[in-house]
Structure formats: C-alpha cells, structure tokens
C-alpha cells in the first residue's frame, strides 16, 4: 500500500515550487542511563571530588574538581562549556601542598563564579574561596577560615540564594566526640560571617556527618543532604545512610532530619548524596552505594531459578578476553556474569536455548569441582551415574553447547559420539581441563577400582567439528593402587601445563593419597609422590596443584599428628628435581588446617589461593609471604566470604573473583566497590519523597557523581570519579535525549537515503559540520558520544507551506560508520553512514528457530522477529497476509535471522522493508500491483534512462521442492549385520537377536542369512548336523533372530566311553599252535577310542552375515518450470536457472515460484532509471505511472530502488536540483 501524505503536503509535492525543510535527530540506541561515560581528560594525575555542576545564566555548564597530587602539589580544575554545551574548557588554579578535599561553586550576582574549598594539613583545615570569571580568569582569592585541632571535617557545599542573592556555605566537622553541620553566610562573597552550628533534630550527636550537599529549590527552600555514620563495627567498619533536612527560611532554621536510605549492614552502605532539582517539585537524588564486595547469588536479578535456586559453585573462571565470569552451580545451571556491570548476561540450563542435556535435571548430580574451564568455554563433566562418561561444553560467546558422549546412555537416549575411546569395568570421568594453548579439552578417567586400577588421560581437540569426536589418549597408567584411585574419585584434579610439557594429577581423602606428574608429549609418568615413597609428602594428599619453576605447590588436605607428620601444615612445596619436599605455613593465622585449595598464578608471579576457612589468600613464592582477604581483614565483608573454593583474577582491574557456597563474589585489591545510583525525587505535601534507586553509571568503581539538568530539555549531564587500579579520573556522560543535528548539516552535501527491494537495509548518508565536536576522541567535547556507532538517527523531510511545517518521516537508522579528517586549513566535517535495524539481523545467527508446522508465512515472520529481536507485533510490525500463502513446515538451524525472513519473502514473491515510520513490513513484487501514483505529465522528470545492462538472458526457471510428507523407500540389498561364534560336541541351541545398527534405529526388510563359515564333522554328520536359520519375527524391522542349533553328542560320548570301559574287559584271542594273538578286545577298544575322539573333535567356528534391504523415508521431490518462450525463440537458446526451495511442497507451489522468478528475470531485461524531482509519496515497491518523455505514452514502472537526495544549496541561488528521487525500476507496460 502506498504512502498517504497530508493533503496540503500532497498538493505541494504535485507542484514544482518547493520550500523544503529537513530534520535529523540522533539519540542513543537504547537508554543512555546507566552511563558508560567518557574520560574528561587523558591525565594520569588523579582527578577527584567533582563539585555539583551548575547551570550558568549564559547557558554554560560550570563545574570544578580537585587535581593532584602532581608531585606534592594540588590544583583546582575549573571546567566550563560553551553556551551551546558542546565542549568543555579547563582552567587550572594551583593550590599548595595541602590535601584539597572538596570543592563547591555557584554563580555570583555579577555572573562570575565563586569557588569554595577545603584544604587539610594534618589536623588543620583551611576553608578558602576564589572568584573567577565564567571563562576561568582569576579575579580574587582569600582564606575564609582556618580551623585547627580537628580530626575530621567534610564539605563544603555552597549556594547563592535566588531570593536574597546572599551566599551560604555548609560543612560538617567533629566537635569533641560529637559531629555537627555548620554554616557561614556572606552577602558579597567577600566577607563571611562566623560559623554557626545547625540545629537539626533527629540525629544522634555522636553520629559522624559527612559529604554535605546544599541546594535551593524553586520555592526557595534549602535542601541539605548528608551522609551519617550510624554505627561502627568491631573492625572499624562504618554503617552509613543518607539523611536530609529542609530549611524554609533561608537556612535560619532546619527541619528534623529525614532518613532517605535504609542500609542495615556494614557490607553495603550509602555515601555522597547530591540533590538536584529538575523542575519545580521534581528532581533527583544521587548517592554512592559502597560495597566491600560484589555478590552474585540467588538474590541477584536474573539468577536462573530465582530465589529458590541453588547457588553453590562447582567451577568458576574469568574470561579475561571478554570480561565475563562463568560459574557452574551444583545443579543444572551455568551463569555468565559481565564484570564491568556486574550483571548476569546469560545462563544455560536444561530449559534454555541451547539447553544442557536433561540429564542435568537429575537432582543428585554432582560435579565435585572436577572441571577446569577456561576462556569462553565452560566444561560440564560429571561422574554421577549413569552419565559417568559424558560431558558438555558451553561456548559462552557463541552461545553453543557441544556434547561429548563417550558411551551410550540408553536411559537418557544418549548415543555415543566419541571415537578412539574404550571402557573397562567401572570407567568414570574424574576430571576435565580446558587447554586454550592447544585448543584441547582434556579428560581424566579412572578404570576398574579394586580389580584393575588404572588412570587414563586424553583429549579431544576443540577444533574437532564433529558430529563424531576423536579422543586421543596420552596417558595410560596402571601403576596405581586402590587407595590412590579412590583419592581421585570425586576429589581428584587434573591440570595441564602446555608450556612445561606436563600433566599433573592429584587426589586427597581419608587414606594414603598421591600426586603424579606425566610428560604431556609422551604420556610417560615422570614422578609420583606419596607418603610410602616420600615420607615428607602429606599422607592424606594435597588439594589442588600448581607447577612453577620446577616446583609443585599444593595445599595440605588434612593435618595429622600420625606418620611423623605432626609438623606438616599449610602449603607443600615439592622440588621435582631434588624430590625435596618443604612446607610454608601461612602467617596470617595459627591453624592446623589452612584448607588451601585451587591456585591461580597472577601476572606478578604471586599465587592466589582459595581457602575454605580463610577466604582468599595471596602467597608470594619468592618472598615466602602471606596475606589473606576475608571478613576479618576487610571490614564489612560478609562472613560467607571466608569459605572459598575457587579463585580467579582480573589483571586489568585488580579484581579477585571467588566461588564458594553462596555464588560468586568479587573484591578489589584497590579497595571497596562504589557505584553511583539515582532516585527520582518528588515534592508533594510539603516533603520530598524518593523512588527506587537505579544505577546512574554502569561501572562498579564509578562514584561521587554529581549531575546537572538542562533547564530546557531536562537532559542530565553527569560528572563522576572512575577508579582504574590506583588512578582516579573524572568521567562524564550526558543523556541528551533526541539531539537535533539540523543546524550542523553541511550545505552542498547530499542527505541521501536509499531504499531497495533487494533485501538490503535502507541506507542513509549525510555530512555534518562541527566534526571536531562529534569526534569521539575529543575528550573536551560534550557531543563526542552523540554519533556513537549504533546510535539511532531519525530523518524527516518536509515542506514549509504558508509558514507551516509539513513533515514526512523518512526512516530510522543506526549509525554504522563515521569519518572525519583534520587537515590544516580545512574545516573538519564528519561523514555519517547509517542503516536501518536490519543491518544487525544480517549477523544475527540463530542456532535453531522454533519448528514451524503448518503455519502461515506472515505468522512465521512475526514469530521469528518476536523471538529474536526487541520488536513487538503490535507496535513495530505491519506484516501483511501474503497472497497465495500456504502453510509452511520449516525449522532453520545455524541461519542468519535476515536470511530466514528473506527465504520466506522470496518464496511468496515479497520483499521485506522497514517503513518510513520504522515498522517492519513486506510488500509484494508483482507486475499487476495496483497503481500507487500517477504522473500526468513530465514536469517532474529530470531524466529517463532505459538501461538493461544488469540483466541476463535467463529464459527458463526451474524450481525444485520436496513434498511435505515422507514416503517409504527400499534401498538396494546390503550386508546389515554379522554374527560369529563357536559350537561343539556339548551341543548348541541359541537364538541371537541381531539389530541392524548399533543404535537400534535402522530398519531392514527381507533379511536373509548368508553362511560364511560353519562347522561340519563326522560326529555332527552322525548326529544330524548343525541347523542355522534366520527368523524374521520383528514387526518393527529393527532386528531379526538367528537360531543356531547343533546336536549334543554327549550321550554318544557317554556311550562310547562306557563301551570303551567295558571293552577293556574283552580278551584278546591267543592261537597257541600258531603262536598268534588275535587282539579282538584291543581292536574293539581302539575303535571305541576313535569314536570318542571323533566326538570330542566335533567343534568349530561359525560365521554368518545378514543381508537385507534397508528401509528409509524420503520426501519425494517435486519441480516445475517456467519458460520465456519469446526470448528462447529470439536468441535460439534455452538458458536455465535452477532453484531449490525448501518451502515448495507441491508442483503448483514450485510453479508459483518459477513463474515469479521468471517474471523478475524478464523484468530485469526491462530496467530503466528515472531521475525526478522528489515526491515524498513515492517509495520502493510502488507501481508508478509516468509519461514517456518522447512518446507521451503512459508507462508503468515498478520501483525496485529509490535514492532520495536533499542538498541544501550553498548561499545564494544556484542551478541545481535540491531534492531529487533517483528511481531504478522495471518497465511493466
């Protein structure tokens, strides 16, 4: 359906007298808050304590912060924007060597800026002031007061009273053992009155007050916000909350303090409040939420299973490349945590897509921390029966799961897919390890337990694409006893050290345990340490192993005073060259069992070690020193933190990650986590109330934020401190809402929009001035993030008609690239390119879509987009019912989202598009669409160019599909099974059930038995011979029965033996006269012996083959052809294009597609391009009637591509077309 314009605009567009107008706006692709922010400067000197910024009467934003120490000197940095708030300029005011604490500023009556700040020198504080111009030129400075012998002071906060133009500053300080807020006032910002203590009810005098913030709101009330330490813990930890007091008389009297936040534990507290009035009766309160550690457990938003879920961690690691933590829980679930935002970004369970195998729903499944994952991979192996030799591998970045099944698990319908692996009795997987150096997943198996103890270690390459995976065995070690093997069962660990060419395994438990070292490249065992060979080796074994510089480190599993090991505690150190075993006992506590477990070596060579009794431990192997991080050493840390089993480290941000009984925790080596949050403030009934706090910034070490609201747009600009290791920097971020780019459009450069039916996203390009301000690398610019990649750009074209603006949307796009060049003497313009949202769908690979069974194509498209994008059917889509639609049966796997949509559109002769009002839709490609627009003359035509240069000579299209339903087919007879065996004189009568495939799924019809080898002997000949027959009795055709019968010769044997025994009594006959003996008895006996031997010799092998015709199911192919007989006749050739279409199920449907494709092919031979004056009604997919410029005959054109260009001319008049439509189309008639 064509676009309908406003009637006035339509009339204007039909004419040639235009007054075009253009509007382009930019905004963040999603919400700007929480801010990621940009560094204000590239300084390496610390920047701290940003003052609450102010709106200056000139329109500028003004602020200040503390800079230093630079060497030993501090400075104040004053920052101010231009009146358009587009960039910042900084002025520096050197202070001395005293520690500058806080700064505040206000606009003075004359437009200058007044600054007040605190400096600290030991117990002496200096309250100082400075006046500067708004452009940062110093005017005057003075010391307001010197306050001596103080152990604490905080502030100041400064305002100018909008009603009286007087100035008030407030600070807090200690007085004896009490704390109070004080004020000083001035009428001229030159002379200050003495301090006076504020009388605020509702506070306990011994509560420490700090971080005061003072603002005046529209009704002239003073709003004083401050932080209060309500209690101090045994280790000096402080519990603080935010309070507020209001003065309705210019600061003379103050209302009872109101508690704003309600933190109740030392582990999470609030500090640094900043109140900002947005407009009358509404505003924001910004605070710091300060935490000793970050916790991610079942209480965390997004935790799979919610508050009832289990959160005991069984494996955990940090992917430093992608900044993600992966944690495997005891039951069912793997979570992915984004470290920068400390949010759960993905999870996998038996109910996700992709899903873990349903086996993991088994409630008694155990992992026993046997899995060592790394990088983006999470390996999930278990030795819980029946899946003792089964594991899955999650690729967290690509969101895929690979299954390695070493054997069939019939109860779970698991079919083995690993070759090169064999099992013996009781084979079980005991450990896994991801080796990123060589892209391998390693497995440690134990065999046989008591009877045939054996350890086997091997790997599967991560590059092996399957579906069958090759197992490569490296180690086979039978020199292991049952005790050692039991130590590996559940409590074993395998670690691979590729750079050292080593594999080390260890176990621990209640009996004698061992640690073994193998050469990775050969599989040969180098060493094995156990008590009976090395009395200094811990009798009960070690938890964890770590190899470094020829030494193996491990934690003593359990202290014992037996076996002469009464002095063995803490960390065992094995020198593998000398076999000397020594110990290091942690210095942070005096214990028998330090429970040192998993190791992680940090970049500086120190070891991060998990301790289930002391939290996280750091050991320096060079200096032999210890330190511990737990609730004792870090005030405010939860006691849960003391029981840690798994550790990892973020070298970039100095973060320690821990896995224990309560999810994943993180602590910073550099201090607490602090994150700025904000609440919406509402004034009603004489009081301010606050909504739920949300993150103002995304970083977890981003705090002390101050914000200012634009007085017109109410957009927020924020400044805050970002801590990176030990460096502190000021960051800034803005929520500009829709930012108008209209004033920066460069004249003479086209704003170009291309929309096509070819399936590519709509394209937008334009050029802006002020490139230096839009430059993302220009730290001083407040606009540098406005054109960030992915940000949204909306374009409108319109007309100014009788001083009224008439607009028509031209689409919503996302910035894909920007280009800017600084060159001496040239003005820096910036070129922007953008595409509609479909550009993301191109790269959006879908592992598996839903299975669509008999659904309409428009429904399938809507479902695809609903499942995989944020679009909703009601507000973001307008998909028509397809003409000649039929139900489709399809499921896509590993296919791009846009490809799925494209296939559906191609099948039914449609193209997909994003409309000008940013809705997804489809339009029909056809020669008989109704006319959308008729031009009655050539007045708007600039040029017409018939051009078929891109067409081919294709004159036949054949489309091949397949029927919906399967048909049964019989394949050529083949050998489908074999059977071997042995029969003998003892007799044989057995039915063998023979399946035609190992997975018992292959169907075979008309099976027959082919005897390759059988047994014949006189014994069997005498007894009736062997019987071999195939009994085809299985109705499912999955198996047959081979019956083998051989007669038993045992009765004959018994008879012969008895006869022989009897014949031994027969006499030989002696003929005396002839001196001859007739050995009749002997002969009979011999004959019987031969018979016995013949019977006993009646045994041998049989070998049979089963042949039959496999039964399968195939979809019958269907096809149809469309011919352009006219062209075939003209050129004398038939040039065919064959198309396979999985969405064609009948000949008629194939014919439909073939006819459509032939139409496109012939239409391409009738291409033409038309350049005309813009008409905002026209779109791609329209059928438009033009007047042929020469013949004056009507010609109908289907618009395949439309490029609309608006060029604002350089100053003055010029001969050019400002607004043009360039149409590529097909001549229809």
């Amino acid at each position, binding site marked *: 359906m064509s676009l309908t314009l406003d009637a006035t605009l339509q009339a204007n567009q039909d004419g*040639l*007298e*235009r*007054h*075009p107008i253009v509007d382009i706006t930019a905004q963040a692709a999603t919400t700007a808050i929480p801010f990621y922010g940009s560094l204000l400067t590239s300084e390496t000197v610390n920047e701290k304590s940003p003052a609450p910024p102010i709106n200056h009467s000139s329109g500028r934003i003004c602020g200040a912060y503390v800079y230093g120490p630079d060497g030993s000197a501090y400075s104040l940095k004053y920052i101010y924007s231009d009146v358009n708030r587009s960039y910042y300029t900084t002025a520096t005011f050197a202070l001395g060597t005293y520690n500058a604490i806080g700064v505040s500023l206000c606009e003075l009556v004359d437009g200058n800026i007044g600054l007040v700040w605190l400096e600290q020198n030991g117990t002496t504080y200096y309250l100082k002031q400075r006046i500067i111009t708004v452009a940062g030129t110093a005017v005057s400075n003075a010391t307001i007061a010197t306050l001596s012998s103080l152990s604490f002071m905080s502030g100041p906060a400064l305002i100018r009273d909008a009603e009286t133009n007087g100035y008030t500053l407030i600070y807090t300080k200690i007085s004896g053992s009490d704390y109070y807020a004080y004020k000083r006032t001035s009428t001229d910002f030159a002379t200050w009155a003495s301090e006076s203590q504020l009388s605020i009810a509702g506070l306990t005098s011994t509560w420490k007050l700090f971080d005061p913030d003072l603002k005046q709101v529209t009704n002239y009330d003073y709003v004083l916000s401050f932080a209060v330490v309500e209690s101090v813990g045994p280790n000096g930890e402080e519990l603080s909350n935010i309070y507020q007091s209001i003065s309705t008389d210019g600061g003379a009297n103050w209302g009872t303090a109101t508690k704003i936040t309600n933190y109740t534990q030392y582990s999470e507290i609030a500090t640094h409040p900043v109140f900002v009035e947005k407009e009358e009766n509404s505003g924001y309160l910004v605070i710091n939420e300060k935490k000793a550690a970050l916790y991610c457990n079942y209480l965390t938003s997004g935790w799979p299973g919610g508050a009832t879920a289990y959160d005991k961690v069984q494996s955990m690691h940090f992917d430093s490349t992608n900044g993600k933590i992966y944690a495997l829980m005891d039951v069912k679930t793997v979570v992915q945590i984004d470290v920068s935002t400390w949010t759960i970004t993905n999870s996998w369970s038996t109910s996700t897509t992709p899903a873990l195998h349903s086996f993991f729903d088994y409630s008694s499944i155990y992992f026993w921390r046997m899995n060592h994952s790394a990088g983006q991979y999470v390996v999930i192996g278990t030795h819980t029966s029946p899946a003792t030799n089964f594991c899955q591998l999650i690729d967290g970045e690509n969101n895929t799961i690979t299954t390695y099944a070493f054997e069939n698990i019939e109860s779970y319908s698991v079919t083995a897919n690993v070759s090169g692996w064999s099992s013996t009795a009781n084979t079980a997987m005991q450990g896994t390890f991801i080796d990123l150096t060589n892209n391998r997943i390693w497995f440690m198996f134990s065999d046989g337990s008591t009877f045939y103890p054996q350890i086997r270690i091997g790997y599967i390459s991560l590059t092996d694409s399957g579906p069958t995976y090759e197992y490569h065995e490296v180690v086979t070690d039978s020199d292991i006893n049952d005790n050692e093997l039991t130590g590996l069962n559940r409590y074993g660990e395998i670690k691979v050290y590729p750079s050292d060419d080593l594999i080390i395994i260890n176990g621990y438990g209640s009996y004698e345990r061992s640690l073994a070292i193998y050469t990775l490249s050969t599989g040969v065992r180098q060493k094995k340490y156990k008590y009976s060979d090395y009395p200094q080796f811990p009798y009960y074994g070690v938890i964890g192993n770590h190899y470094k510089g020829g030494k193996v480190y491990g934690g003593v599993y359990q202290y014992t005073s037996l076996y002469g090991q009464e002095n063995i505690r803490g960390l065992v150190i094995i020198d593998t060259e000398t076999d000397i075993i020594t110990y290091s006992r942690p210095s942070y506590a005096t214990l028998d069992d330090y429970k040192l477990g998993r190791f992680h070596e940090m970049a500086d060579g120190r070891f991060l070690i998990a301790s289930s009794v002391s939290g996280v431990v750091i050991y320096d192997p060079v200096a032999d020193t210890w330190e511990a991080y737990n609730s004792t050493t870090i005030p405010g840390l939860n006691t849960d933190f003391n029981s840690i089993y798994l550790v990892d480290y973020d070298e970039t941000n100095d973060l320690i990650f821990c896995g224990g009984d309560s999810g994943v925790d993180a602590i910073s080596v550099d201090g607490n986590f602090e994150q700025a949050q904000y609440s919406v403030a509402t004034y009603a009934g004489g009081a301010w109330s606050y909504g739920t706090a949300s993150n103002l910034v995304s970083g977890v070490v981003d705090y002390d934020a101050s914000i200012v609201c634009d007085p017109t747009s109410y957009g927020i600009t924020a400044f805050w401190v970002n801590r990176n290791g030990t460096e502190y920097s000021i960051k800034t971020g803005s929520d500009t809402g829709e930012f108008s780019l209209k004033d920066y459009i460069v*004249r003479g450069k086209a704003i170009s929009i291309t929309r096509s039916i070819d399936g590519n996203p709509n394209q937008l390009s334009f050029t802006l001035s002020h490139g230096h301000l839009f430059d993302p690398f220009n730290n001083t610019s407040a606009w540098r993030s406005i054109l960030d990649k992915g940000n949204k750009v909306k374009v409108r074209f319109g007309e*100014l008609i009788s001083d009224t603006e008439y607009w028509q949307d031209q689409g919503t796009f996302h910035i894909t690239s920007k280009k800017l060049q600084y060159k001496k003497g040239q003005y820096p313009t910036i070129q922007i390119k953008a595409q509609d949202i479909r550009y993301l769908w191109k790269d959006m690979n879908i592992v598996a879509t839903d299975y669509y069974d008999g659904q309409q194509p428009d429904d399938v498209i809507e479902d695809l987009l609903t499942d995989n994008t944020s679009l909703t059917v009601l507000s973001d889509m307008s998909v028509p019912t397809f003409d000649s639609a039929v139900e489709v049966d399809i499921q896509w796997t590993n296919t791009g989202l846009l490809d799925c949509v494209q296939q559906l559109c191609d099948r039914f002769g449609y193209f997909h598009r994003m409309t000008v009002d940013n809705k997804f839709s489809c339009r029909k490609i056809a020669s008989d669409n109704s006319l959308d627009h008729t031009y009655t*003359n*050539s*007045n*708007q*035509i*600039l*040029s*017409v160019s018939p051009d078929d240069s891109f067409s081919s000579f294709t004159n036949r299209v054949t489309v091949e599909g397949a029927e919906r339903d399967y048909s049964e087919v019989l394949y050529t007879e083949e050998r489908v099974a074999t059977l071997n065996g042995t029969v003998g004189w003892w007799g044989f009568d057995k039915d063998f059930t023979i399946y035609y495939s190992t997975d018992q799924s292959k169907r075979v019809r008309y099976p027959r038995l082919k005897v390759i080898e059988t047994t014949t002997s006189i014994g069997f000949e005498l007894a009736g011979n062997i019987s071999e027959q195939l009994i085809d009795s299985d109705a499912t055709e999955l198996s047959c029965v081979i019956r083998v019968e051989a007669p038993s010769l045992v009765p004959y044997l018994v008879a012969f033996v008895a006869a022989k025994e009897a014949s031994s009594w027969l006499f030989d006959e002696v003929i005396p006269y002839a001196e001859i003996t007739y050995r009749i008895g002997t002969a009979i006996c011999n004959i019987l012996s031969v018979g016995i031997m013949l019977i006993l010799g009646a045994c041998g092998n049989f070998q049979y083959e089963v042949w039959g015709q496999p039964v399968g199911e195939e979809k019958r192919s269907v096809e149809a052809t469309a011919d352009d007989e006219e062209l075939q006749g003209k050129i004398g050739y038939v040039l065919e294009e064959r198309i396979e279409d999985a969405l064609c199920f009948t000949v008629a449907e194939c014919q439909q597609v073939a006819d459509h494709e032939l139409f496109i092919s012939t239409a391409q031979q009738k291409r033409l391009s038309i350049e*005309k*004056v813009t008409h905002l009604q026209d779109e791609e997919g329209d059928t438009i009637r033009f007047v042929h*410029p020469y013949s004056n005959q009507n010609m109908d054109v289907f618009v395949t591509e439309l490029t609309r260009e608006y*060029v*604002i*001319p*350089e*100053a*003055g*008049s*010029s*001969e*050019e*077309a*400002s*607004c043009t439509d360039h149409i590529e189309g097909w001549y229809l008639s």
Partner: protein
Amino acid sequence: MSNMVLGSYTFAANPSNMPAINKVLDIAYTKTYSSVATFSWGTSYVGLELTLKWEHMRNTQWDSLDAIYQADADVVFDPQDGESKTFNVHVVSFNGDHYLDVTDRENVVMVLLFRSEVVA
C-alpha cells in the same frame, strides 16, 4: 547615525563603503523535462559575508580592530544602520596597506561572517 560597534569597540570612523545588510535567499532551481522546479530554503543572515572598506584608518582604530581579529572569536556587530539589529559575527579577514611613512593604514578591508542575528 552613530558609529558602528564591533564587540566592545566603537568604530572611531565608520567604513567608507559597506553593502546593505540584507538576508540572503538560498534557492536552487533546475529545469525539468517540461518545466522548471524551484527549491527555496528561505532567507537568512546566516553565512552572509559582509565586507567593510576604509580608504584610510588611523592606527589606533587599526590596532583595536586587529585585536578583535586576532582574538579569533565570535563578537557582536552593531551596524547602526537604522534597522536596530545586531549580529553575532566572526572577523574572517582584516587587511590594509601602510599609509605613506606613518603608522596609519589605507585601503583597509574587513570581512565579517554572520553567524546569527542577536535575538533581543
């Protein structure tokens, strides 16, 4: 007519030649196959270049105007032309010849780029 003001400097002598300050009509036009189309983008002072010329200028005025030129910043221009309008302008060019052997100048040309009209 009072003397013109540029920034905080009131001209000691007005220019001997200055075009009338008039909004510029930005318009494009093109001939179509059978007609002509016009695209008017309206009138505006924005982007107008105004050339002020002096046949002779005392060195004190030269120095004052040159300081504004060297400051390379937007300033307010009050032309005192009876229209009661002032403009944000940028001095984009300022040139002149030495006048005989004294420090005065002759054939001085100043070009002002109009950024916007100052809204009262």
